[in-house]
């Protein structure tokens, strides 16, 4: 409550970066508390069930329990984390951690308790982003903090829909901050731990592998191999701590089966806006055209969202996609980045490479969830304020990916919340980036490492205002049209479609959102690929 800070001062009210970042966090925490009673997805019950099963069952049964349909399918560290939380839960309300009686429990205690755990676990995000922005100038710091800590996507996914992404991405950022500082061993260690929290982060593992191999373990046979041993030992011991007990119990097969449920289909129930949306649509389109031309095309029996049923392919014409194909495609897409990381492993580019890796995983992966876009949008904000081009790309990408999360909150009560979150984010970004880049004198006054270099390249050291203006933050006409289109898609889905078509084609608005956002994400992928290829 009210701190006794009534001694009003003429000078600045305590303004060290640490105080400021806490201020950002606390403001967001207040909003998060206010969101407690809003809608929660089944993920809320999933995590409650995990609290219950880790609390009331011995370790040996964690990955076997079937009491609830929401079985444990995260790696052991996350289970340990839930075990840790369940200790407090049992103190507050024993019913939360009761395996049977707690099923679908939704009293205030459990809602508040789980909400508070998400808010508190976000502290790792705070630590991560602070580590990454420690050496930036004050203005840029605040801009980035507002992008990360007040990210509308985290609000939507973590605090309404319910998950612990802020916590996990925080760990990723901590790992990145170690890599940027050159403390590779710690970076590798934290990343290994992250993989044992949530294995979906493994998409970036190839980049980590190549980077650490070249940056940490290279140079001389003796030094190299000893470092390789140290790194390998560290990573292995992390995995041993996580999976060791289950290995000892001989349950490792069961754990793996739970972690990788390949029985699921290529796409999630709501298609994530990725490459496969185009693939499916072109299949449909081709089938439609051929049918018009009189070719007999069978309508596929299987659906691509459900699992692989027997041998039947969900596609009419185009070839069947298997998990292996998606795996190879992700690796192929990653290869330019891996090549760059091999040739010139620079700490200051590692964030971009990791972001690119997660983008590839999102675009070409198997059964990708739309929430996975968080994995690259949040880390990307760290580099968003480096150049106007970065800012422009980030502006578009974060709006598109936040918009693609809209279908997650489908109830009327949350509609204004998600719209306001996105609007607020856009206006903060827009005014922030404009203030950062369009104000010629300001940019010249506080040039930091990267911007300065760029400025020097362009020979605008003398800071002729026109030159700076040209490089300022402004959207091109294609971007503008695309964003206006986003509004049109939303109006169509919310208003015109129900009015004009009623209940017919009820899936169409969602499909439209997927397809439209997929264009944006594809653009972002190509932009990133290009910037990685042309980078020195």
């Amino acid at each position, binding site marked *: 409550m009210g701190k006794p800070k009534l001694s009003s001062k003429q000078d600045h009210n305590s303004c060290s970066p640490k105080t400021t970042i806490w201020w950002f966090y606390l403001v967001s925490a207040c909003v998060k508390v206010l969101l407690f009673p*809003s809608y929660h997805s089944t993920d809320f019950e999933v995590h409650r069930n995990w609290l219950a099963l880790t609390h009331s069952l011995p370790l040996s049964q964690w990955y076997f329990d079937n009491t609830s349909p929401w079985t444990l399918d995260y790696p052991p560290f996350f289970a340990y984390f839930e075990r840790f939380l369940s200790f407090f839960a049992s103190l507050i309300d024993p019913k939360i951690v009761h395996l049977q009686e707690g099923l679908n429990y939704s009293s205030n205690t459990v809602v*508040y308790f789980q909400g508070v755990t998400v808010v508190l676990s976000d502290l790792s995000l705070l630590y991560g982003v602070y580590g990454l922005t420690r050496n930036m*100038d004050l203005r840029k710091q605040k801009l980035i903090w507002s992008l990360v800590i007040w990210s509308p996507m985290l609000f939507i996914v973590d605090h309404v829909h319910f998950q612990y992404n802020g916590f996990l991405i925080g760990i990723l950022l901590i790992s990145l901050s170690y890599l940027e500082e050159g403390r590779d061993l710690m970076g590798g260690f934290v990343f290994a731990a992250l993989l044992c929290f949530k294995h979906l982060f493994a998409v970036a593992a190839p980049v980590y592998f190549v980077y650490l191999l070249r940056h940490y373990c290279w140079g001389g046979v003796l030094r190299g191999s000893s470092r390789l041993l140290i790194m390998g030992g560290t990573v292995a011991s992390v995995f041993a701590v996580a999976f060791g007990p289950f290995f000892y119990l001989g349950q490792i097969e069961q754990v793996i089966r739970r972690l990788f449920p390949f029985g699921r289909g290529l796409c999630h129930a709501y298609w994530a806006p990725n490459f496969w949306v185009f693939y499916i649509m072109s299949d449909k389109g081709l089938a439609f055209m051929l049918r018009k031309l009189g070719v007999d095309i069978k309508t596929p029996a299987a659906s691509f969202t459900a699992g692989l049923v027997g041998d039947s392919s969900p596609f009419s014409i185009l070839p069947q996609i298997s998990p292996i194909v998606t795996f190879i495609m992700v690796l192929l897409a990653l290869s330019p980045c891996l090549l760059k990381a091999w040739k010139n492993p620079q700490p200051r580019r590692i964030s971009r490479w990791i972001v690119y890796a997660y983008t590839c995983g999102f675009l070409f992966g198997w059964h990708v969830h739309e929430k996975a876009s968080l994995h690259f949008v949040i880390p990307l904000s760290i580099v968003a304020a480096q150049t106007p081009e970065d800012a422009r790309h980030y502006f578009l990408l974060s709006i598109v990916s936040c918009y693609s999360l809209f279908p997650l909150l489908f109830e009327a*009560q949350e509609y*204004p919340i998600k719209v306001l979150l996105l609007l607020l984010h856009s206006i903060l970004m827009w005014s922030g980036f404009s203030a950062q880049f369009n*104000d010629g004198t300001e940019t010249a006054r506080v040039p930091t490492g990267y911007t300065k270099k760029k400025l020097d390249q362009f020979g605008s050291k003398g800071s002729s205002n026109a030159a700076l203006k040209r490089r300022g933050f402004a959207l091109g006409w294609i971007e503008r049209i695309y964003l206006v289109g986003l509004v049109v898609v939303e109006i169509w889905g919310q208003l015109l479609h129900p009015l004009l078509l009623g209940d017919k084609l009820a899936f169409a608005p969602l499909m439209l959102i997927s397809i439209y956002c997929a264009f944006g994400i594809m653009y972002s992928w190509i932009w990133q690929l290009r910037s990685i290829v042309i980078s020195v």
Partner: protein
Amino acid sequence: MDKGKKMKESETVLNDGDDYNCWWWLVQKGTAVTFVTIALFGFLIRVAVSTYPYSGAGNPPKFGDYEAQRHWMEITINLPIREWYRNSSSNDLSYWGLDYPPLTAYQSFVHGLFLRFFHPDSVSLFASRGHESYLGKLLMRWTVLSSDALIFFPSVLYFVTVYYNKPGRIRKSDVAWHIALLLLNPCLILIDHGHFQFNCISLGFTIGAVAAILSEKDLVACVFYCLSLNHKQMSAYFAPAFFSHLMGKCLRRKHPLLQVLKLGLYVLGTFAAVWWPYLYSTNSILEVLSRLAPFERGLFEDYVANFWCATSVLIKWKRLLTTDSLKLVSFTATIITCLPSMVQQIKSPSNRGFLYALLNSSFSFYLFSFQVHEKSILLPLLPASLLAMEDPSTFKWFVQFAMLSMFPLLCRDDLAAPYFALLALFTLIFNAPGQHIVKENNFLYHYLGTRTMNFILCFSAILHIVYLTMHPPEKYPFLFEAIIMNLCFSQFVLITLGSNIKQWMLNKPVKLEIEKKHN
């Protein structure tokens, strides 16, 4: 938005130390962008609070204010306008009968139409008594949200535009800070969007009236203030200030009588327009008027931090005096306590003095008038928030105790979580890193000293915890409430004493300046 642009031009911009400011980039694009951003945030907060339960949720047979408002919508859209205030077989006035002036009834009518369009069951006559549903709650919440967006927010923009439209050194971040304090007033948000009421409409009109007076548009101010008064009779708390300020101004004009006549005409015109459907007979006017004066409800309700309730611990007013004499006593006390500020405004009307007069007169009503509700603290809080820039620390002190005074009420509504979240948010915004807080002579310090203030703060924090976690002794079931109310009462008295003194002190520096000029 061009108002914002105008403002930008007339401002003397100060950018020093912006690097430290949390929202340095927000103020770069001019006040319009700043306002839009803060308004979006304020709206988000309101929507989020509205997900919490309303007063009387799932609590038959009487439910709470939410049911009252819903019932008014039901009555107004189903009955002819003349029967709205009349007890009849289809309008049982003992069940949440309309007891606000006609403008509230019209507003209920419009919102009732909105509800009927989307969810007819929620406002059908008789059948919808105690109606509670997901969609019903949502639609009701949206009626308050839209009223806020349509009336309160534009009024605040109007006020800020006028208030900062003066030459002098104005820091842009200060404007942003003030907008944030106005739009994120935790008490107002909790009562309107948590507890469920439409204070934003009457308070919004009042802000509009204040802004009109600050920009020398007295006639517009009259219209706005009458609208406010016709939405909630509680706005009469501000009447002495408006009256004395306009009076003082008129007396300074060339033809005072003509000016008064003009103002009177506008007031009468507005009233006539609002009351038109009831003007056909004296009887019907009296019918409505009798609904507006809730004298049968007693001197005070529940536990409210005013003089009568605080002293009733020692003196049982209700037993000592009859209702009629209590009415007289409370009326006299109210008039006497707001007289000094009225006299000051008649003697030397000024914009600053007017804002202080608003605070003082509403405080004297809150502390001494008949039938005060704990929610009425919103009325003194409004001018205090308009004056936030003058003496920020006193404003903060006031908000903290205004919140505390409503704490028992909000706990009953199950709104403890948003209570703490909004109080924390307010404190955070108030103490935003890098925000310059101009030090004015802080009278609270002179009276109390830091140590006492810290002690009081700790005490109030402990009170919160005790109230939430402990049961009162059986002999005194309302012990905690009584302690809270007495603590708040003492602080309110201090604050209003201070602001009365300040208002009177306003005359001094002006004289000094004039003397300087003459020299």
